[in-house]
């Protein structure tokens, strides 16, 4: 993996690595600009674009009114007219305000209009629970977007991947929904972030660690929680392969098939609600392929409860999978199915 080539051992937070990616892209090419609510002097609700307006000016880091539909629509139009807008929507929950432009316009234009036009647009938005912001500021909506043909959907789990993936998303001639877990913004990952402008291609799953007893496929922050479980269980002799799809649409299944053929056991983990969730797609694809014959245990899934995210911390924690839940599930699959 290219991110291992870094020698400076630079540990950045995800907010810093995303800022670095945008800064590189905007320095490389004039057609890239950032637009969103409070992205200027405020630096964005989570500080991702901090100081960028000072560097690039008000015409390239554009503060907008509170107007999600208008902002995304204007970004679609600007993309059609030759620009490469990056739009920040303050909370992914608010993409609902802009859904016509995302789902009916951006996603469909290239196909529906016969390929004459395309929409090189990146929509960055924070998602996820854990901040006590309750039901309208805490959802994981990756499944919504993954169910719309024409959108690419990226869910980075760490700063190094976030940087390389965002650079690829900005290069991509298609609309990309880039979903950033807000609990990851302020923490450095395990891997150093390379200084350069190396891209990580979209649509390539990453094998985060290898083990022969169990395959865990997890998205976003669940990759980090699963890593902690894998570390702990490794000490007990349970070895886990952890796979981070990184791009949930298009989805690279090959490393997943390969690993399940070896381990015979599969646990899939997501934060969003289970009903109709993205992980069900992973399960379906394994189930309808010859990989199914390699399974020695029933597939297990862990996902958010099918409820709106509640406010109180103990309720909020209970609504989504925690490290302990993953640990229990992983241990049971391996112990019960030999």
């Amino acid at each position: 993996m290219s991110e291992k080539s870094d020698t400076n051992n630079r540990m950045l937070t995800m907010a810093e690595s995303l800022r670095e990616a945008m800064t590189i892209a905007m320095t490389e090419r004039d057609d890239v600009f950032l637009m969103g609510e409070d992205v200027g002097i405020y630096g964005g609700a989570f500080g991702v674009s901090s100081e960028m307006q000072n560097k690039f000016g008000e015409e390239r880091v554009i503060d907008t009114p509170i107007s999600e539909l208008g902002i995304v629509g204007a970004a679609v139009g600007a993309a059609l007219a030759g620009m490469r807008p990056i739009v920040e929507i303050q909370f992914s929950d608010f993409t609902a305000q802009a859904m016509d432009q995302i789902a009916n316009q951006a996603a469909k234009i290239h196909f529906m209009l016969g390929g004459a036009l395309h929409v090189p647009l990146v929509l960055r938005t924070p998602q996820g629970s854990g901040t006590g912001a309750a039901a309208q500021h805490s959802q994981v909506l990756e499944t919504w977007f993954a169910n719309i043909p024409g959108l690419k959907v990226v869910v980075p789990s760490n700063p190094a991947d976030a940087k390389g993936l965002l650079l690829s998303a900005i290069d991509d001639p298609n609309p990309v929904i880039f979903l950033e877990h807000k609990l990851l913004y302020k923490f450095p990952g395990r891997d150093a972030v390379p200084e350069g402008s190396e891209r990580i291609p979209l649509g390539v799953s990453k094998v985060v660690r290898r083990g022969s007893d169990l395959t865990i496929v997890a998205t976003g922050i669940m990759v980090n929680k699963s890593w902690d479980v894998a570390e702990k269980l490794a000490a007990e002799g349970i070895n886990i392969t952890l796979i981070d799809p990184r791009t949930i649409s298009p989805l690279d299944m090959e490393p997943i098939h390969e690993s399940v053929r070896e381990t015979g056991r599969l646990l899939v983990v997501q934060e969003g609600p289970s009903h109709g969730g993205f992980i069900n797609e992973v399960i379906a694809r394994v189930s309808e392929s010859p990989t199914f014959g390699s399974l020695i245990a029933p597939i297990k899934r862990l996902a958010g409860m099918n409820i709106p995210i509640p406010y109180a911390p103990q309720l909020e924690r209970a609504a989504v999978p925690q490290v302990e839940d993953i640990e229990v599930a992983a241990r049971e699959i391996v112990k019960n199915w030999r």
Partner: protein
Amino acid sequence: MTTIQLLKGHPLSSKEHATHALLYMWKVRKFEEAVKDLFGRGMMHGTMHLSIGQEASATGMCLALDLADQITSTHRGHGHCIAKGADLTRMIAELLGKKIGYCGGRGGSMHIADVETGNLGANGVVGGGIPIAVGAALASKLQKKGTVAVSFFGDGAMNEGAFHEAANLAAIWKLPVIFFCENNHYGMSSSTDKAFAIHKLSDRGLGYGIPGVTVDGNNVVEVYEAAEAAVARAKSGGGPTIIEAVTYRWEGHSRSDKNLYRTKEEIEEWKHKDPIPKFISILHEKNLLSQVEIDAIQQQAYDEIMHAVNEAVKAESAEPSGLLDAVFKKVSA
């Protein structure tokens, strides 16, 4: 494929301009009649939204535009597309599901776009194209291209949030965009009387600091003059304008419409305000074109449409193979 030959300018400024304006209005009329005929004969699939009776608004607006200026259009968009210079054969071919159609049969009537003539696409969602036009205008401003973007939409779209958000962004950023409202009096069956508490829809601009003008949308000269002023304002950095062109659709909303919400008398009354004879009477008054010349222009429009229909009917049908590969634009290495 025909080459794009648009003639910008006042429809009464010369014989050529008058010819051009009349030819394009007639092309729109004949195109829509041909579509209706193809539907009637069971040769066309899906639905249709005809703009018969509204030819002057599309034509008058586009006469004020350069080729590089951009438009976004609506479900009732054939007229805008033609007036901006689209290829008629490829349009009909799209409606017939042919490979050479503008969208290769993937979009149909409501999704024709034409990059060469600055048409960023018709739209199946009411109001969907309005913020997109604002974005095109933002790109024009950022890239200092000096072009204007025009969003065509109907009276119904003025009650969509998309209009309001787009209008505000355009106003605060002084973008080179024109909000062109074709008020044809009905959003499907909802009359403007029931859907608005104001009489002049261009007054909607007041809340955003955008000047608005209401014109006779069946008078191509009046439409052009308002369009020209709005284009000049946009291109000189003055910002957006709302133009309300008051017109009427003769046909139903779509093919399922039984016209239960309006009277035959009302439709007949508007047929007497037909934009084409209205322009011809102005031409007679100004002595710009003779009756012989006018008849020849009508014949030319008819011939062009018939040629397009014949070519499109003969063309190869679109095939389902390759659909999966068409979803995304290929990422270049």
